[in-house]
C-alpha cells in the first residue's frame, strides 16, 4: 500500500482550521435549530459557497428572435464550470410551481462567471414561454452542475461538420463562441449546416453570418420555406468533403434519426445531442397503466383506483393517512409517468431529467394512474 506523505505542519494547520470551522458551524446550527445556518444565510446570500442546492440569479434577458431569448444567469459560488456543448438542469418557478428543464449552455466559461442559456418558446411549452416572455431579471432559479458528453474533442480535429436544426444550435453556439474568443483561434476547418423554418426564426443568425463573413466558419443556412425540408442524403452535395469531417448533430429527433442512419451507412462518426429523450403518453381520462412500485415490482393500475390502494393490494408498505386527500401523510415521489387527481382530474406528470432529480411528490390516496408510472420510496 502506498502512503502519501503530507508535510506535517500544513496537515495539522488544515485540520485545526477544519475543526474550528466545524465547531463554529455546530454552534451556529445549535443556535438556530430546527433550521440550520444555511436556511438563515439563504435569506441574505443565496449564491454563497456551500449552500445545500445550487441556485442562480437571472441578471439579463436578451431577445434573440421574436420567440427566443438568451437568459444570463449568475450562478452560485459552487458552480463547478462547464465545457461548451454541455447542458444544465434548471428549476424555474413558473406561476409559483417549480418546474425543471434542461437547456444547453450557450457560452463558454465567461470572465464574469455568468452562464447563459438560450431558450426558444415552443407552443404550449410552460417553462420556455415563461423564460422567453415573462421571466424577470433578479429572480432566482435552481441549478444543477453542468452535464453532457456533447463536447468537442481535444486536440481539435482538422475538419469538423456541425449540423443543427432550430434550437439545436444552442450547444454549438457555445462551442463556437468559446473557440473564437481565444487569442489564437483554432485552425480547424468548420462547416455549420444550420437548419431553420425561416430566416426570421433562426437564432444567432447575424452572429453566425459574421463568423462566416470573417472566414472563421463555412455557414450553410437552410430554410425550410426557401430550400424545402433538409434531406440528409443531400448533405454529401452540400458538403463535398463530408467523409473527412468529424460530425456533430443537434436538433429534433426526426433529423437526428435520419442523420444517424445516414452516417452509419457511410461508416462515419457522429456525435448527437437529443433534447427530449422521454415523451410521456398520458392516457385518456379513466385509463390506467402499469405502476412500478418502489421495490421494482410492476402491477396493473386502473384509472379510477388510488395508486395507494393498488400498491397496498400488491402488498407494498405504503405511507398513508386520512385516505381522502387531506393529511398529506401518503406523499411520495412520482419518478416518472403521469397520475390523475381523482378529485378534479388534474394531471401530474414526472419526466426523469426534467421534473427534478427526486421526482414529483404526489398524494397517493387521491391519485390514480394515468398511463404507466413509477413511484419511489419516501425520502
Amino acid at each position, binding site marked *: 500500500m502506498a502512503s502519501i506523505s503530507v508535510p506535517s505542519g500544513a496537515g495539522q494547520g488544515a485540520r485545526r482550521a477544519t475543526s474550528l470551522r466545524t465547531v463554529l458551524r455546530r454552534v451556529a446550527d*445549535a443556535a438556530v435549530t430546527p433550521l440550520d445556518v444555511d436556511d438563515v444565510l439563504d435569506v441574505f446570500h443565496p449564491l454563497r459557497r456551500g449552500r445545500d*442546492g445550487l441556485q442562480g440569479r437571472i441578471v439579463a434577458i436578451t431577445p434573440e428572435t421574436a420567440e427566443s431569448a438568451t437568459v444570463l444567469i449568475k450562478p452560485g459560488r459552487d458552480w463547478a464550470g462547464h465545457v461548451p456543448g454541455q447542458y444544465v438542469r434548471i428549476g424555474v418557478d413558473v406561476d*409559483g410551481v417549480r418546474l425543471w428543464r434542461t437547456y444547453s449552455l450557450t457560452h463558454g466559461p465567461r470572465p464574469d462567471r455568468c452562464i447563459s442559456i438560450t431558450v426558444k418558446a415552443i407552443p404550449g411549452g410552460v417553462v420556455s414561454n415563461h423564460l422567453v416572455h415573462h421571466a424577470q431579471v433578479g429572480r432566482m432559479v435552481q441549478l444543477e452542475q453542468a452535464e453532457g458528453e456533447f463536447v468537442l474533442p481535444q486536440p481539435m480535429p482538422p475538419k469538423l461538420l456541425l449540423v443543427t436544426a432550430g434550437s439545436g444550435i444552442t450547444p454549438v453556439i457555445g462551442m463556437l463562441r468559446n473557440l473564437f474568443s481565444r487569442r489564437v483561434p483554432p485552425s480547424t476547418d468548420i462547416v455549420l449546416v444550420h437548419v431553420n423554418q425561416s430566416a426570421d426564426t433562426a437564432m444567432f443568425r447575424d452572429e453566425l453570418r459574421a463568423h462566416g463573413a470573417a472566414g472563421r466558419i463555412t455557414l450553410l443556412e437552410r430554410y425550410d420555406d426557401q430550400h424545402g425540408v433538409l434531406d440528409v442524403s443531400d448533405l454529401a452535395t452540400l458538403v463535398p468533403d463530408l467523409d473527412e469531417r468529424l460530425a456533430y448533430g443537434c436538433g429534433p429527433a426526426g433529423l437526428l434519426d435520419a442523420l444517424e442512419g445516414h452516417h452509419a451507412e457511410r461508416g462515419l462518426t457522429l456525435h448527437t445531442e437529443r433534447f427530449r429523450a422521454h415523451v410521456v403518453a398520458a392516457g385518456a381520462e379513466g385509463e390506467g397503466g402499469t405502476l412500478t412500485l418502489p421495490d421494482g415490482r410492476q402491477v396493473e393500475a386502473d384509472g379510477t383506483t388510488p395508486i395507494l390502494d393498488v400498491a397496498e393490494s400488491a402488498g407494498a408498505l405504503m405511507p398513508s393517512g*386520512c385516505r*381522502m386527500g387531506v*393529511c398529506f401523510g401518503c406523499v411520495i415521489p412520482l419518478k416518472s409517468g403521469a397520475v390523475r387527481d381523482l378529485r378534479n382530474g*388534474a394531471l401530474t406528470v414526472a419526466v426523469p431529467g426534467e421534473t427534478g432529480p427526486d421526482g414529483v411528490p404526489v398524494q397517493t390516496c387521491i391519485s390514480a394512474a394515468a398511463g404507466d408510472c413509477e413511484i419511489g420510496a419516501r*425520502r
Partner: protein
Amino acid sequence: MTVITKKSENPTAHLTPEDVEQIGIELDAIRQEVLDDRGERDAAYIRRVVAIQRRLELGSRAVLLGSALPPLWVLGTVGLSVAKILENMEIGHNVMHGQWDWMRDPKIHSTTWEWDNASTADGWKHAHNEVHHTYTNIVGKDNDLGYGIMRVDEDQRWHPMFLAQPVWNFINACFFEYGIAAYDLELGRNLRIPKEKRSPEFKAQLSKTLKKIRKQATKDYVVNPALALPLGGFLPALAANFTANLVRNVWSHSVIMCGHFPEGVETFEKKSIPDDETRGQWYLRQMLGSANISGSKAMHVMTGNLSHQIEHHLFPDLPSNRYAEVAPKVEALFEKYDLNYHSASLPQQVGSAWHKVVRLSLPNGWLATTNRSNLVEQTKLLWAMSTKGPKVRRAAAARLQQQERRLAQAA
C-alpha cells in the same frame, strides 16, 4: 356541548341528504376556484412571510445579545415572541398541512419541514393532520377534544380530577409545546402500558421527541444566552427566550382553544358517523365543529389564519392566505342552508372557551341546580361525588341531571 345527535333540536335536522351532498358540491367548487387561481401570488406570499420571520428572529436574537440593557431586552423579547408565533402558526402549521406542497420547493414542503416546537414534525402531522382533521370533534376519536386530559363536552363522563381542569388548562397554556409533544406521543395512554409492552414505534417517537426537546432547549436556554455572555446578558437572554416561548405557548393555546372549544360548537357521537361518510357529510361536520375569530389582518396572520378555523377545516390544504378570500363565500353558504357560522372576537371566543372549561370541570347540572340557599348541600354533594367512589358519583350525577331537566321544564 352535547353531541349533536342527543340534542332536542339538531341544527342539521332541516337538511335533506340531497342538501348535504349539494353543500359538498358547492364547497368543492369553492376549493376548485382557489386551486385554479393558485400561483405566483401565493408563492410570493409564503416566501415573503418566511423571509420576514427569519429576519425578525435573527434581528431579535441579535438585539438580545445586549439584553443586559432593559430596553433591548423588551425589544428583543417582543420580536422573538412574534417571530416564534409566526414560525409556529402561519408557517409551520400550514406548511406541515401540505398547503405549499404544490410549489414543489423542497425547502417549503410538508415532508421536509421541521418547526420551532417541542413536538416533532412527524408526530404532529400524524396526530393533527390524520387524526384530528379526519375525526374532528367526534367524542372518543378526536383527541383534540380536551387533549385527553380535560372535559370539554357534556358527553365526556365527569370525574373528580376534572375539578382541577381550569388549573391544568392554565398550566397547559404556559407549556403548550410540551403538551402538544406529549399529546402527539399519546403519552398518557402509552405510559399506562407496562414498559416492556410499549410498542417500538412509541419508543422510537419518544426518543426522537426527547432529542428534539433537548435541541430546542439547548438553543433557547444555552447557546443563545451564552452568546450574550460577553455583554453580561446570559440571564436576561435566557429569561427573554423563556418569555418568548411562554408568550408563544399561551397565544397558540388560546387560538387553538378558540377553534373548537367555544360554547355553541358542535360535537359528534362516534356511532352516529357512518362508516361510509360522504364528502358532503364530512364537510358538514367540519362546518359545525369549528369556530372563527373575527379581527384585523394582523390578527389573522398571527393566528396562522386559524382565525378562519371553519375555512381551514373545510380546506386544510388550501394556502392559508386564501382563507380570508373564501370566507365570505363560505359564510354565504352557511346562510343559504341556515347553519350557524360561528364567529366572534378573540376575547369573546377565549372567554367562551374558558367558560366551558370551568363549567365542565363540574358535573353536568351542578351549576344549574345550585343557588345561594342550597350552596352548602351542593358543596357536600360535590365532595361526596369526589370522594365516595364511582357508584355514589354515578347516582348523584343522574340525580343532578334529572333535577336540571325539571328546573328547565318549570322555567
